């Protein structure tokens, strides 16, 4: 056992942390949001240049790292900085699916994803599908030419991606794992309507409506009807990414709160001198350490056999959801009114922490899934 970072990872972490400290203040984030931009394209280009996108892929895929601990490290720093650049949607989800299933031709996309020149998105969620990955009903029919009809919701980065990877059903019924395929669809495709919106936590997302969009069979990613396992794999990686991001955001919220408890004076002393608040902060610190351990657990089991990995996915996501809500609620409370203002960075961290519970399954979903996976294993 060794809980220290390798030298390479320590360097990567150090570089990324410094980059964000130097270039990514809260004011920048607020300005980008206020101007209605989905993210900062200069920051995006710099992240690609620094090799951060490459760190999310293995050497065989054209990157230089790509293990669970690399993903965790990068996303913790994104979370700590409050960055809204689309690494999750383009690299982890989009790039990850191409890397897992793509033909040699399709894999050529990866170089452009890693260089930041092109962006991908993964369109999977549908109205009412909630957190169940097999709830796909968007219809795909045809032979050489495939026609796609239906609606995809909550597509992260969907309006800024050149190419969208879309899940669709070629056989079976919604709720069946078999019969789901993936297709590479240009965002400009005829019949594809893309409506962009911002999320509560500041990310750009889109609703995609497909009214008979036609793509050639060569746009299929992987074998027909057999995409479910890859979708589950990539969801595990994405879950790790958002859990690590939540952890980074919690660290920032925690640090801001500790500073505030020392600075804010009421009743003639710093509020951090009140034992009632000291104990709350001590509890919070313990929970954040638990959150860190949960992220480590998942990162370390990302390549374990499915049964083991998925138990960790659900355990970690459940714990992060619980601790995240507690950290968000407590840090706002300990700040008083100022913690509720948009102008103050804390409210941006807490929004991200809480809304991560709504990505890839929430506390209840993963609690139930954890129990179920345990029964299957026995």
């Amino acid at each position, binding site marked *: 056992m060794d809980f220290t970072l390798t030298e390479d990872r320590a360097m990567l972490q150090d570089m990324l942390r410094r980059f964000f400290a130097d270039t990514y203040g809260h004011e920048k984030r607020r300005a980008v949001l206020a101007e209605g931009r989905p993210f900062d394209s200069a920051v995006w280009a710099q992240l690609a240049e620094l090799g951060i996108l490459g760190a999310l892929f293995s050497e065989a895929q054209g990157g230089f790292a790509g293990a669970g601990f690399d993903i965790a490290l990068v996303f913790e720093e994104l979370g700590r900085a409050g960055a809204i650049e689309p690494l999750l949607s383009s690299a982890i989800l989009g790039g990850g699916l191409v890397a897992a299933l793509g033909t040699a031709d399709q894999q050529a996309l990866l170089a452009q994803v890693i260089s930041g020149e092109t962006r991908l998105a993964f369109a999977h969620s549908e109205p009412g599908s909630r*957190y*169940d990955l097999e709830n796909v009903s968007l219809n795909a029919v045809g032979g050489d030419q495939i026609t796609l009809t239906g609606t995809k919701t909550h597509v992260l980065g969907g309006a800024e991606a050149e190419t969208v990877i879309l899940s669709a059903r070629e056989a079976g019924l919604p709720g069946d794992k078999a019969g789901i395929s993936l297709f590479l669809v240009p965002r400009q495709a005829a019949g594809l309507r893309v409506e962009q919106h911002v999320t509560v936590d500041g990310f750009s997302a889109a609703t995609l409506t497909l009214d008979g969009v036609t793509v050639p069979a060569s746009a299929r990613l992987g074998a027909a009807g057999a995409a479910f396992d890859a979708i589950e794999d990539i969801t595990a990686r994405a879950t790790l990414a958002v859990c690590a991001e939540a952890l980074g955001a919690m660290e920032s919220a925690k640090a801001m709160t500790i500073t505030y408890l020392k600075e804010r004076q009421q009743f003639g002393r710093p509020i951090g001198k009140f034992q009632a608040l000291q104990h709350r902060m001590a509890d919070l610190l313990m929970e954040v350490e638990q959150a860190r351990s949960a992220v480590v657990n998942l990162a370390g089991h990302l390549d374990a056999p499915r049964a083991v990995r998925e138990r960790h996915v659900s355990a970690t996501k459940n714990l992060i959801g619980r601790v995240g809500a507690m950290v968000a609620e407590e840090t706002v409370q300990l700040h008083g009114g100022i913690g509720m203002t948009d102008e103050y960075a804390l409210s941006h961290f807490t929004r991200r922490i809480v809304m991560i519970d709504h990505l890839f399954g929430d506390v209840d979903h993963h609690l139930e899934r954890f129990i179920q996976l345990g029964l299957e294993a026995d």
Partner: protein
Amino acid sequence: MDLSYTAEQQAFRAEVRAFLAEALPKRLSEKVRLGKRLNKAEIEEWHAILNARGWLAPNWPAEFGGAEWDAVERQIFEEEACLAHAPRVVPFGLMMLAPVLLAFGSEAQKRHYLPRILSGEDWWCQGYSEPGAGSDLASVKTRAVRDGDEYVVNGQKTWTTLGQYANWIFCLVRTDTDCKPQQGISFLLIDMTSPGVTVRPITLIDGEAEVNEVFFDNVRVPTENLVGTENQGWTYAKYLLTHERTNIAGVGFSNAALATLKQVAANTLSGGRPLAQNPHFAARMAQVEIDLMAMRTTNLRVVSAAAKGQAPGAESSMLKIKGTQIRQELTSLLRRATGPDAMPFLPDYLEGGDNQMSGLPDHAPTAAPSYFNMRKLSIFGGSNEIQRGIISKAILEL
């Protein structure tokens, strides 16, 4: 002990229900049902409807146009109004300033201000908090210096709810600095249209500019706007706070929120069955309902004890803490029930526009903003930590 309603109380409930069915415009109740924000005109419209019926001021004496309801009648009205999705009544004039004027104001002040609250001519806001005076309210620094028959006011208030709509503000101001902080405070009524008053909105975590900063730069206020005696403002301020806290229990709101939550949970599929049948989610819903059933009785016990002449002193702190915990848990559960659909931020919808996103249920866009907004309940009106301090000192005598 008798938990049943009398025949009169049952008749009153029927009367309230009939009134709401007839007088509450669907336009307003739909917005409230969906958690959308009401604008100034809509709030005023509802006030006027209640006023016409004589029900705008439940706790005022009849002499000034109040309904003089007892605790049970008030709870009945609140329950029915919330279940019918009636807009909330803005409390600053009706529930906060008025009790202070009734107890400590001059006859002239009562005759002048109370009718204008009812008629909607005046919209009041609360000028207590300052950047440096939050929980430690007695440390207010806004200065009022006497100059002939006027005070000259300089300083800043903050977190002023709906100050952007108000034309009057009641303020705690410092009129003496050579004494204990509590002893140099006065309670002053300030016309916000006076020269030197500036209001700057503050956007909150849910994207709404619900609160404001209010700046006073050499604002001249007639001395007749002083309530009670100079330097006795702290007494009036605390009296007001116990009223503020009682209303904060929010049992009616919680009833309505629970009804909405149950409906959403029954209509949302999760893992192939209604969310209401997910054992973990169902358990949390049941837990909060059980708490709410007890809270309803706690509220009645405390409030009716006060009605018999006992002041709802430190016990109101209990209502505040427990009531806000329940309300916060309900909004948290509704956010969770909404699932991925809670993610889009749709400010136009929140302000009253239509839901234009395909496949998005109507309750979805307000779920997360309401959850974040409701964090305020445990912060304002004396934070829940301050309330625990009050219970420890005043009830437990620790």
